[in-house]
């Protein structure tokens, strides 16, 4: 059941009406839990047992952690949670990937190994709910939160349907307190939730899905397209993945909101970032903060000198890449981000040491201090452009996944996908093909969609800086909203496209 489909609209209407008509907090939570399991079972009924298993494991381990004060026992309990959760993730998400990789490696060495894959179905959202339950257990272990005694509340925290399949990754300390009070129906929340849902749907249907139809052929066979096509497709994919994922997040936050729950934001205009660090403060915020809190800082963060910091950065980004999917191209995507973060950190270190020797240090971005010979606005634009370029080149590797050839049971070797990505990136700079004189005219829809995305980004940023939002008079607002909704109906594709992040 996809958020942008009719069955979900019916499901949400039923859940909304029933939820608010139930008199007690427990009844509402029990109903939401049943609805969440039902929502998940619409993909694959059997796989709900994994969520339930993970819930059981972490519920009891957290209680065990609370009751035991002996450190070895607590460590053993934490290890059990890590092994249980990451074990499930390893089997369902990574086992086949490692078997195929090993087979490819052995074949390249001339060894014919008869290694068979498990061929298990990848459970939707497994990476999201695994990280969520892990964060709960680790927080209890660290003493940051007290474990909940209510199995119902904990189950709902794990399975809450708006964010179950593609996040945002909710922390227990943000969500569980919200379950302790009964919600009051509030029209203002319904208003803003409905509009936020409409905005998310617009990003998904009007921008992401439209861009997908233009982008997919270019990434499938980049060698059939010219250099300007490749540039445009690269930026269009950046737009597609942002609108797809942030559209989903907006809808998830909106659905939670109309049910009386608050989820943290996951995006903050990432393509306006003026540095890689800035980008990761704006893109998939719930994942980047998870990685920071539960991986980067435990590894030592930036406390042990530059080399350890660089190692930690690279490790976190590689694992972040692997978290997205079982493919080496995701690892390379992580490596590009890791390398770029290291370069910008190193540059910042060098710049601050120069500044300490008496040079002026700019306060607005890691790459800026050494560019003071340029005007401050130009410097900002240069940093923004560099960040945008690095992020989008990395998206090429993210997008070029091994495809399953027609009729084949297993995906093509990673080398084929990598070959496409390398060809793509190389020919961004080495001219390929002859450009049609009316090229731009034929690409006008792509350009308009990108312009719409850019306008949305700029407007959102403008508002973030405290400007007053556009407020139409009510008699004009009604027709404007109606036209907005009708445009969505008009341009929605015949078949619902799944969200990109559902596969992670």
């Amino acid at each position, binding site marked *: 059941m996809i958020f942008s*489909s009719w069955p979900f609209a019916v499901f949400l209407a039923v859940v909304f009406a029933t939820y608010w008509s139930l008199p007690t907090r427990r009844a509402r939570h029990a109903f939401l839990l049943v609805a969440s399991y039902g929502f998940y079972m619409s993909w694959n009924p059997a796989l709900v047992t994994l969520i339930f298993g993970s819930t059981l494991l972490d519920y009891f381990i957290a209680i065990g952690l609370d009751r035991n004060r002996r450190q070895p026992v607590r460590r053993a309990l934490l290890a059990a949670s890590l092994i249980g959760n990451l074990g499930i993730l390893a089997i369902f998400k990574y086992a086949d990937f490692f078997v195929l990789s090993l087979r490819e490696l052995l074949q390249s060495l001339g060894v014919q190994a008869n290694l068979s894959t498990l061929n298990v179905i990848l459970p939707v959202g497994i990476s999201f709910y695994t990280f969520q339950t892990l964060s709960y257990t680790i927080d209890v272990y660290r003493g940051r939160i007290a474990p909940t005694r209510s199995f119902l509340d904990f189950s709902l925290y794990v399975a809450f349907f708006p964010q179950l399949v593609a996040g945002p990754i909710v922390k227990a300390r943000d969500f569980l307190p919200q379950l302790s009070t009964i919600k009051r129906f509030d029209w203002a929340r319904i*208003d803003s939730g409905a509009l*936020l849902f409409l905005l998310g749907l617009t990003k998904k249907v009007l921008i992401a899905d439209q861009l997908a139809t233009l982008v997919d052929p270019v990434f499938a066979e980049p060698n059939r397209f010219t250099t300007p096509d490749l540039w445009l497709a690269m930026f269009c994919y950046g737009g597609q993945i942002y609108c797809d994922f942030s559209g989903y997040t907006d809808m998830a*936050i909106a659905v939670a909101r109309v049910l009386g729950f608050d989820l943290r934001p996951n995006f903050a205009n990432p393509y306006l970032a003026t540095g890689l660090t800035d980008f990761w403060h704006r893109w998939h915020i719930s994942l980047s903060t998870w990685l920071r809190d539960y991986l980067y800082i435990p590894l030592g963060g930036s406390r042990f000198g530059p080399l350890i910091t660089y190692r930690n950065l690279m490790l976190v980004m590689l694992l972040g890449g692997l978290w997205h999917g079982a493919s080496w191209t995701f690892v390379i995507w992580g490596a590009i981000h890791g390398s770029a973060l290291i370069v910008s950190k190193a540059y910042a270190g060098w710049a601050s040491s120069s500044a300490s020797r008496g040079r002026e240090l700019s306060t607005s971005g890691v790459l800026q201090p050494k560019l003071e010979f340029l005007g401050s606005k130009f410097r900002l634009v240069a940093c923004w452009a560099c960040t945008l370029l690095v992020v989008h080149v990395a998206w090429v590797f993210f997008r070029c996944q091994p495809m399953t*050839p027609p009729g084949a049971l297993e995906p093509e070797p990673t080398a084929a996908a990598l070959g496409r990505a390398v060809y793509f990136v190389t020919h961004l700079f080495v001219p390929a093909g002859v450009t049609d004189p009316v090229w731009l005219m034929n690409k006008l829809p792509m350009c308009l969609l990108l312009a719409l995305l850019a306008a949305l980004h700029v407007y*959102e940023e403008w508002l973030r800086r405290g400007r007053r*939002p556009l407020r139409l008079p009510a008699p004009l607002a009604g027709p404007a909203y*109606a036209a907005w909704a009708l445009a969505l109906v*008009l341009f929605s594709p015949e078949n619902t496209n799944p969200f990109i992040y559902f596969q992670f």
Partner: protein
Amino acid sequence: MTPEVPPIFNASPNVMHLIPNAEYPETVARASATRRRITIVVTAALTVVAVDLGVHRIDADLAAYYINRYERKLAALAALPQKPAIVLMGSSRAKYGLVPEEFQRVARCRAFNLGIPAAKTIEWRLLAERAFADYNPRLVVLGVNASDVRADYLPVPAAVDLFDWGDFLDYGRTDGWSSIVAEKFLVRRLGGAWAFFGRRYGLKLFMQERVAALFPKHAQVARERREMAAAPCPEDGFEHPWLFGRNLRNLGLALEDQGDRVWAAEVPPFSPDAGALRHFESLLTWFGDHDIRLIVAYLPNSPRTERRWRGAEPQMAAAIEDLCRRYDVPFVSARETAGERTNYDFLEELHAGLPLARRISERVARRIIDARLLDESPSIVARLPEDEIEAP
């Protein structure tokens, strides 16, 4: 008073700011907010109604972009002054692979191609019920292939174009409830009441054609679609693209150029309990009950597909043949219909090129003559006056 926007923890601040009137009740007088909400809802509803009335006014223009493949062929068949003695049915393989002209030449009686892309066993039965409501042809040639009885088939075309409420409920009862089929059926049925929604596809194309200066390619697509919808169905129902000079490249040439990158059809999953096989059986029963003589011809795949499907296709073809034998329906195997063939004989993986289609049709027609299937009168003769049916 300027409403104060409280610190927002619960939703992206940028997003919340984007939304006009997203302030909180404590910052805006409740009564004023309620008035505004009512005004917005009422004006939005009026706008939707006004747009819907506008769409109604141009309904005829919008209808020009729709092709109901089922209605188009059924209407062409119904409009024939002399009903064909032989009707050729099946999916797109039959649409391209069974040439009425060859049947007419060999069997010397009128033939009509009722093959419809994407139709499979359940659609065939619903189509037969409509096509043969008023008359019985002397013979129906059903072109089948393994993919027509694939285990994972969902009758989406039927849900969109053929099901009435009874069919929909019957399907749910016999095959289980599918959310995809239910969604397609309900959206089609209930969405029709809302003109903007029901005609959204036509409206989009209508608008595309009017912005040709900005979007020439999109305008061209819309124009082609309108022209295609307006094109009359040929008298014998046969529309092979090579007859019209379209898609002239064949699979062999495509493979020479692009190798493994050429599109390949997915291997159909097989199950002896597949719903599609059950519906095939009920189709055979239906023809038997209505005393319409039937012959089933297996329409072969290209050699490339046959190689890839070798794990599934023989079992599926055997299952079809077995059912035909049980119902005493003559079956013409792939070996008999097509004989030797190469990838150059096919449009792409699945559909026969015109020369191969003629060969297949001739062989099936000869088999019909050899088996004297047209000689014996069916027990129920045509319900239309005899002069409307061409004698063999």
